[in-house]
């Protein structure tokens, strides 16, 4: 393991909020390190194309431009970057342990900003594990970062504005969208449009996307969900069900991209055992933070969508606030400068939050999705635990997620419950008719990602390891 020197501030996650934090901190001469498991800055929303992709023409996607600016700014401000590094443990104090293709490394800092973003929420349905079914965010990453359409024919399903964005880009790049399946009704869409007005740029963009979709005659199924997917010889069969009248429409397509909103990544905050509160509109469990995104643990800040879903623009503001708070604590800025800078940002953030709330209502998990999960549907994909298994544990007395995990093995696989924890909680609270927050959340554990043993052990001399006392006889 190699030990690198201490940094004034370490930021985990080089998405919009992490980068903004880094830039703000570096302006007062702090030594800053930003870490990301991807090969570049940008996070998921502005995910950069792989390094081997060489720019061909002047044409570019807006997201790629934003990402390039991030990288430029990080370099200009002498911020150290550790890309392709996966953080596997964070210890209080703080010690950050990470691995990359060469082995392990440990950094120290007294100020840690966690900007690890979100995971996509996908509520299970029959056949959701069939290869060819991918997340909606996954589809976006394929389009924007990997420059590929996932298949010749695609069905998009879920809820929220991401559906429209993805459909637009698939059509723009010459793909065919066989259907858009949206759980919201057309009326719910119009309601949320009102809050979109607070962000005119997004609003106009949204309208233009919608127009392209309508002119391309893409069938839109509102108030509908995916009932079942099964493998066919020439693709996958998708059953679309109307939530109200239960009518089913079946079609054969190549790829189904489905997403039901985002949920904050709380891996690190749960590992560090800080308090969380439950807010479904903000994505589920969120860490308890003050208005500058400082947690109850000294020196620990959680920014971006990981503090609660508010969107990419708001994420930058959150990162900035946390950075100012650190600068004030380190006495690098005075009270007045702090107040001036932060009050401006807080005002901006409030506006974005209103916009975010409107989007959030569209992203809220409709009850119909939970009710549609059949008993034999796999919920925990890593361990093949079905809804039946979860209900069985609950009926035998399991009363919180950790207990359900202990009795069923859900969440014990390599994804550690990231993919299924939300759905298990929904299923269990539904069955128990209890408040979902009474089930608590899974205890955070090391490693934060599956830790390859070949990287973990690195090069060593056997004699080094055995510098331990022999166990007593």
């Amino acid at each position, binding site marked *: *393991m190699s030990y690198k020197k201490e940094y004034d501030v370490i930021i985990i996650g080089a998405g919009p909020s992490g980068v903004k934090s880094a830039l703000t901190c570096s302006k007062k001469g702090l030594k800053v390190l930003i870490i990301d498991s991807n090969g570049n800055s940008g996070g998921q929303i502005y995910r950069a194309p792989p390094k081997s992709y060489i720019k061909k023409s002047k044409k570019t996607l807006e997201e790629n431009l934003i990402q390039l600016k991030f990288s430029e700014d990080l370099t200009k401000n002498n911020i150290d970057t550790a890309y392709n590094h996966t953080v596997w443990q964070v*210890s209080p104090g703080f010690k950050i342990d990470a691995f990359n293709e060469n082995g392990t490394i*440990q950094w120290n800092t007294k100020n840690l900003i966690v900007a690890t973003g979100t995971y996509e929420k996908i509520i299970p349905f029959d056949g959701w594990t069939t290869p060819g079914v991918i997340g909606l965010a996954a589809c976006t990453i394929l389009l924007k970062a990997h420059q590929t359409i996932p298949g010749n024919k695609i069905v998009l399903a879920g809820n929220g504005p991401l559906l429209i964005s993805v459909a637009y880009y698939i059509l723009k790049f010459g793909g065919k969208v066989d259907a858009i399946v949206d759980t919201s009704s057309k009326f719910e869409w119009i309601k949320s449009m009102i809050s979109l007005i607070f962000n005119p740029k997004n609003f106009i963009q949204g309208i233009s996307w919608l127009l392209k979709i309508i002119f391309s005659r893409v069938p839109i199924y509102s108030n509908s969900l995916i009932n079942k997917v099964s493998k066919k010889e020439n693709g996958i069969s998708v059953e679309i069900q109307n939530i109200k009248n239960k009518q089913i429409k079946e079609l054969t397509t190549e790829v189904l991209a489905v997403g039901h909103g985002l949920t904050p990544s709380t891996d690190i905050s749960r590992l560090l055992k800080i308090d969380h509160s439950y807010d479904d509109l903000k994505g589920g469990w969120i860490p308890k933070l003050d208005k500058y995104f400082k947690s109850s643990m000294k020196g620990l800040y959680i920014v971006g969508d990981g503090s609660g879903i508010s969107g990419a623009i708001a994420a930058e503001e959150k990162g900035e606030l946390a950075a100012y708070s650190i600068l004030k604590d380190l006495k690098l800025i005075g009270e007045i400068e702090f107040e001036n800078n932060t009050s401006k940002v807080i005002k901006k953030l409030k506006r974005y939050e209103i916009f975010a709330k409107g989007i959030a209502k569209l992203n809220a998990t409709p009850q119909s999705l939970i009710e549609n999960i059949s008993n034999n549907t796999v919920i925990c994909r890593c361990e093949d635990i079905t809804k039946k298994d979860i209900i069985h544990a609950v009926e035998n007395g399991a009363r919180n997620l950790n207990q359900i995990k202990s009795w069923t093995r859900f969440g*014990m696989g390599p994804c550690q419950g990231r993919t299924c924890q939300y759905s298990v909680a929904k299923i269990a609270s539904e069955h128990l008719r209890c408040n979902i927050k009474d089930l608590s959340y899974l205890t955070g554990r090391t*490693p934060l990602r599956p830790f*390859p*043993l070949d990287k973990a052990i690195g090069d060593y001399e056997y004699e080094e390891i055995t510098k331990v006392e*022999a166990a007593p006889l």
Partner: protein
Amino acid sequence: MNNIDIAVIGGGINGSSTALHLAKNGLKVCVIDKDSICRGASGVNAGTLTMHMTRAKLIPFAKKGWELWMNTEKWLSNNIDVKKKNGLCLAFTEEEEKLLNERSQIRKEYGADINIISKSEALKIDPNINNKIKCAAFCEMDGYVSANQTGDAYTKALKENNVEIIENFEVSKINNSNNNYEIIDVHGKKINANKIVLAAGVYLEKILKLVDINIKIKCFPQQLIVTERMPELLKTVITVAHGKLSLKQFENGTVLIGGGWPGKGNIENGYNETIPENLIGNMRLACHAIPNLKNSRVSRVWLGLEAETDDAMPIIGELPNLKNAFIIGSIHSGYTSGPYMGKLLSEKILGNDVDLSMFDIRRLMN
């Protein structure tokens, strides 16, 4: 709750085994636990059933415990995965070879059927081990239990034997009057019993204070590492000469790496934290023993707390200066011998002639 003959405070493997045997002999028993039963060390330990790491003096007890584990249908009903496996204890250096020879000899004298075998013999038994070993110790009496199933298994067995299980009951006071014990929890709930058994694991020091007995019980947070499911990587249960490694592969393909590498923990607030350097050390040792382990990835790490007295020997028997009060705990390799130790104590409580003098708590008191 009326007419409880005996209340067992602490529902881990020691307390639950004691309770089970007492109930099978007709006593009205209740098991009290501040959480759910077997959620402490009993539910999170490595589950290794080996003679190679057992303290030499405890080998006769571990052997009896091993026999019980191999026949759970006779006393624990069913529903717990127990596997008999060969156990290999490896030596990689000359120093370790010497240590292994010495220790195996001593363990053999205490009754463990351990024999030193050559490198080629060891590789025949398990071709997956590192061919750089100097020699190995071999014992057929080895294997493992899936420790996370302990709570479920004991809950069923205790209920079948009419034992009352009282969970989420954190004992804060023990009153003793008129041949009766009154056990009170933090919320004021009361349980009355004629006899008590203190089996509170790492909380024994705290519970003993409630009956005015002061002894030091050390608490060691230990790290456990489990990989994702893998194809067959080892055929045996692996340990090493200096005792700081245990390796086993479950039926589901996951490999559990243990060996008592310390983490950080605090029993006051339940806080625990892993020490990355110790995780890496443990992983290095594991991959050194089974080189192909390098192809796998660690899924998760957790910590368990192990209790130990000043002389690292168990405390089992009557409590001095108290009538009808007993204790069981701090048993090294306690998971293996727990079922048997619980049986022994239950025999003692029933009035049978059992020699528990070597575990007498008085040796630790001033």
